[in-house]
């Protein structure tokens, strides 16, 4: 029983980390179809934002509260610049986009190395989030609970914005039919920029959260990139619901594999599961249902 609850929890926790890392990508890649290889570096920028804020503010609790919105702003601003300078000119050229953003990612890693040094840095966890709580007989670290909560809040916020706000309607309209959106009076360029801002900002938030459970180095973001892409693809492009289910499923699969083998073998196991799954269901977990293709 304890083992089961423990694993379930580990799965949920790993899943929510994956989800945070993948949520922004589900907008930029899932909705807009942009393969942004620098997404991981936006996560990394969020990590260093948390680090810098703590150097200045001192108090771990206060700096976390500052770093979360600031991380969003930093990630979002980097995304806006990348979109305006490069990606905008490469829409419909996925291979070029992939190569260019991969290069940008490497440059950003080097910049981080120059500014913060190659060795990993640590951000201290606020006292309120230290230690654990007993849940159903299992001791659960509070940082993990916090990250789960944050993932739930972030996913809910994105879903509500997409579903119920004018900005969300415009994003869905441009994604659905760019030309038709223009004829509805919508500036598709402005929507692209806005979507990219939000998606990249979410990467920044993920980065801030990740400092609670691990140290930060220039390559921190990179390690999450593949997982994040997997979550988005497995969930079905553009489906937030799919991303949630896929992230939790991946987290659980990884947790189970890890119990019986090593972490890297677990990765291999997850990979095989996804490859098989996508063979059976290439469109992902969830797809859009419509009568016309327009």
């Amino acid at each position, binding site marked *: 029983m304890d083992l089961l609850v423990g694993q379930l929890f580990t799965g949920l926790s790993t899943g929510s980390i994956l989800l945070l890392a993948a949520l922004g990508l589900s907008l930029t890649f899932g909705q807009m179809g942009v393969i942004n290889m620098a997404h991981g570096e936006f996560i990394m920028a969020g990590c260093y934002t948390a680090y810098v804020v703590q150097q200045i503010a001192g108090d771990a609790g206060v700096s976390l509260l500052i770093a979360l919105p600031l991380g969003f702003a930093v990630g979002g601003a980097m995304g806006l610049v990348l979109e305006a300078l490069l990606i905008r000119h490469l829409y419909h050229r996925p291979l070029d986009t992939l190569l260019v953003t991969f290069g940008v990612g490497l440059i950003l890693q080097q910049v981080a190395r120059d500014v913060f040094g190659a060795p990993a840095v640590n951000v201290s966890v606020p006292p309120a989030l230290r230690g654990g709580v007993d849940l159903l007989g299992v001791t659960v670290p509070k940082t993990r609970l916090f990250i789960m909560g944050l993932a739930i809040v972030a996913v809910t916020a994105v879903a509500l914005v997409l579903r119920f706000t004018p900005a969300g309607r415009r994003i869905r*309209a441009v994604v659905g039919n760019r030309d*038709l959106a223009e*004829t509805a*009076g919508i*500036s598709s360029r402005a929507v692209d920029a806005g979507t990219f801002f939000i998606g990249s900002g979410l990467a920044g938030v993920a980065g801030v959260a990740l400092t609670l459970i691990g140290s930060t180095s220039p390559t921190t973001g990179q390690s999450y990139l593949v997982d994040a892409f997997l979550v988005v693809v497995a969930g079905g492009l553009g489906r937030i619901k799919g991303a949630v289910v896929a992230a939790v499923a991946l987290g659980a699969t990884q947790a189970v594999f890890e119990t019986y083998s090593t972490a890297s073998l677990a990765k291999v196991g997850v990979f095989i599961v996804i490859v098989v799954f996508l063979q059976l269901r290439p469109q992902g977990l969830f797809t*859009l249902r419509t*009568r*016309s293709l*327009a």
Partner: protein
Amino acid sequence: MLTLRNLTCGYGRTPVVHDVNLDVGTDQVVAVMGHNGAGKTTLLRAVVGLLPAMTGTIELDGRDLTRTPTHRRIAHGMAYVPQGQQCFAHLTAGENLRLVADGRKHGKTLIDEQLDRFPALRPLQNRQAGLLSGGQRQQLAIARALITEPRLLILDEPTEGIQPNVVAEIEAAIVDLARSGLSVLLVEQHLGFALQAAAQYAVLRSGRVASHGATGAGARERVREAMAI
């Protein structure tokens, strides 16, 4: 109102529509006719800016819009109902309308006016637009265009592939709009309705204006002749 001068446009580097001159006067309905593949849709796409003009100019009320992006042309008073009952399939019918009304003064009233015009849409507000019938989607598309409060409405075969009783409704709506002072640029294959609704006509053949003029006496014969190959 709308003035096209020597407009040439096409896909990639290949021109499809050549050297078109066309005027739509204030309160006027102008019908563009022509066989499948004559370039009617291509012409309209260039007018709203979804295709760049290779040469020539597009003016609306004396303002040169030749290089203006589509959404700005809409803001200047154009509205476009594309061929094929297009809608935002993944949005509900209501969202399709709200999308355009967002940020407009009296947006709710504008939507209500169109729902009064097309009462069939009222009970379908929460239905995903992609699941509506062709006729319903076309009414939705026209309603969406009208919410932008255009001065010039551009329609591409609005009754193509729609069952007869809905065709009558849509045609009545177009005639009604023209009476209320809207200028209309109408691509229409049905000679009868085109000549009845429009004051002026133009026939496209292989991307060129083969015949144009008033729709009065003798027009039917001139159009037939221009369409014959």
